């Protein structure tokens, strides 16, 4: 984990107020493991004081393969896929190529600690479950599972078709992609948990590992479903973050533990947790 001043290479607008931000960060990019995140600072704005947490969508070589200019093929670019929801992300959207920003990365444990990998190896298929911008946490895991030869399927739900960004990036890595939209503008109408449930029902004999990222309600529903079907499930959690470093204790969520339960930090013990470990009842 490093704190670096990184330069904007591209800030590409996508549909539905989403952007794909590419940052040159040759020191941080090689360290990134699937499921980790970054804290981005927008310096000079004391009304956006705290850094904003963003999943690392992808890491890239500075020069596409074959051009022969890469430094021993180490990635140099970190990509973030984000959606404008407030003032911080609005300011991110105003970044132009050449602008500089401060980034703390990579942070958190990510999906592929040894214990998690073990579960993936034991599964017949890994099911990715993404809700909205939660998709951003799943591309790197999908890539690395594909590299390990593990079968995968993507369930991706959003409000409307405009929010179904990034699907094409998953094509090379997942066997099938199932889409849903709340407004019915694409795929199954309604929540993504419906086609997911159907899939689990129809393949009772298979062993799945679920990887989910999205809004709390979707994660809760997914966790409950996974539990009912006896599948292990990993969730990538979101919470407001003060530091990303494990020191402010602002990001703690309730997890199962002794007595009344205890708290763990999303930024440090997470962002990926076993769904069963999380206390889903919001207090």
């Amino acid at each position, binding site marked *: *984990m*490093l*704190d670096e001043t990184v330069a904007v290479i591209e800030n590409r607008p996508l549909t539905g107020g989403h952007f794909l931000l590419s940052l040159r960060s040759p020191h941080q990019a090689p360290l990134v493991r699937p499921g980790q995140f970054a804290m981005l*600072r927008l310096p*000079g704005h*004391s*009304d*956006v*004081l*705290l*850094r904003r947490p963003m999943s690392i969508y992808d890491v890239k070589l500075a020069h596409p393969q074959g051009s022969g200019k890469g430094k021993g093929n180490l990635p140099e670019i970190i990509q973030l896929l984000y959606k404008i929801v407030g003032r911080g992300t609005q300011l991110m959207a105003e970044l132009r190529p050449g602008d500089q920003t*401060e980034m*703390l990365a990579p942070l958190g444990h990510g999906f592929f600690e040894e214990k998690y990998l073990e579960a993936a190896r034991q599964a017949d298929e890994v099911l990715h479950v993404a809700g909205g911008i939660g998709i951003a946490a799943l591309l790197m895991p999908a890539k690395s599972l594909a590299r390990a030869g593990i079968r995968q399927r993507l369930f991706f739900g959003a409000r409307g078709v405009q929010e179904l960004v990034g699907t094409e990036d998953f094509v090379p890595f997942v066997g099938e992609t199932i889409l849903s939209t709340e407004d019915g503008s694409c795929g199954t109408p309604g929540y993504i948990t419906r086609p997911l449930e159907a899939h689990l029902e129809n393949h009772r004999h298979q062993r799945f590992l679920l990887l989910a990222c999205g809004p709390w309600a979707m994660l809760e529903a997914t966790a409950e479903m996974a539990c009912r079907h006896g599948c292990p499930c990993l969730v990538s959690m979101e*919470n*407001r*973050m*003060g*530091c990303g*470093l*494990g*020191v*402010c*204790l*602002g*990001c*703690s*969520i*309730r997890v199962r533990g002794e007595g*009344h*339960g*205890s*708290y763990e930090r999303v930024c440090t013990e997470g962002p990926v947790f076993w769904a069963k470990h999380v206390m889903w009842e919001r*207090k």
Partner: protein
Amino acid sequence: MKNQSSIGLARNQSREPETEAAFSPGLEIDLAGIHFQNPVLTASGTFGYGQEFARLIDLNKLGGIVVKGISAEPMPGNPAPRIYETEAGMLNAIGLQNVGARKFLEEKLPFLRTLKARCLVNVFGYSTENYVRCVEILNEGEGIDAYELNISCPNTRCGGMVYGSDPKLTEEVVAASKRVSRCPLFVKLSPNVTDITVFARAAEAAGADGLTLVNTFVGMAIDVETHTPRISNVTGGLSGPAIKPVAVRMVYQVCRAVKIPVIGIGGIASAEDALEFVIAGARAVQVGTANFYAPETSIRVVEGLRAYCQHHRTHFSSLVGSLRLPEDQPPASIEY
């Protein structure tokens, strides 16, 4: 932030480096009998147990580290959400989550002991006995340089009484803790009071070796779509640049009211911010919220203070309380 473009600090760079390096800025200080290599500390609750920052900054360049508030027993803390960003500040209601005094001694202190930075342990409790109990446990540890008594904490569980807003209780808890304490005792004051000098004097009278101020301001924010508080605890503590002017004023008042050393804190994000507290009378400063968004702040403050002293050929000690008042001005008259 605006203070980073300090004219004085910038001008410095155009001077001859040799002549300036020759001058000793005298950043080394003694407070309450403890020697600090410089007057910049990191604030409780914003720097974890130190180790978390080891990969980001050189901890050996800090004057001191004040660790997250420790209680006799471990505490789980509040439900999420615990923090919320406000204009030039943040609200927090962490709920005093901590590992407890014993585990701190076993797991956290050994690392802190290896540093050149002094180790101050922030202590809190729910009753005077509870504070005393915590200090007693901590007394067993090796390498704690001082305690910082956080008396600006919970009110509900002590029948609505806040130690930090009742001068009698302040005196009681400080005296009791001081009696058992093996090392110097700083008392951290709450700013949520009418006259902070009353509490400063109460702590001094009860034997405090120094004061730290300020803690956070009680604030609140509301989500107008859901009609719910932005943090689960309803109210939280406001910190960050927003509070700096009020914090500086309180440090100024307290420094005139007591003889024991004062450590200034509240919204410090640059050497210039730190200098405001020092000129107002603080003998040292702490960096809090800024550690979150700019982890190198404390180091920048140390270096900025050094540069300022060298540029102005001033010894740090002669900056302390060096505020010059307008001639016919009664000090701290308050008018709008």
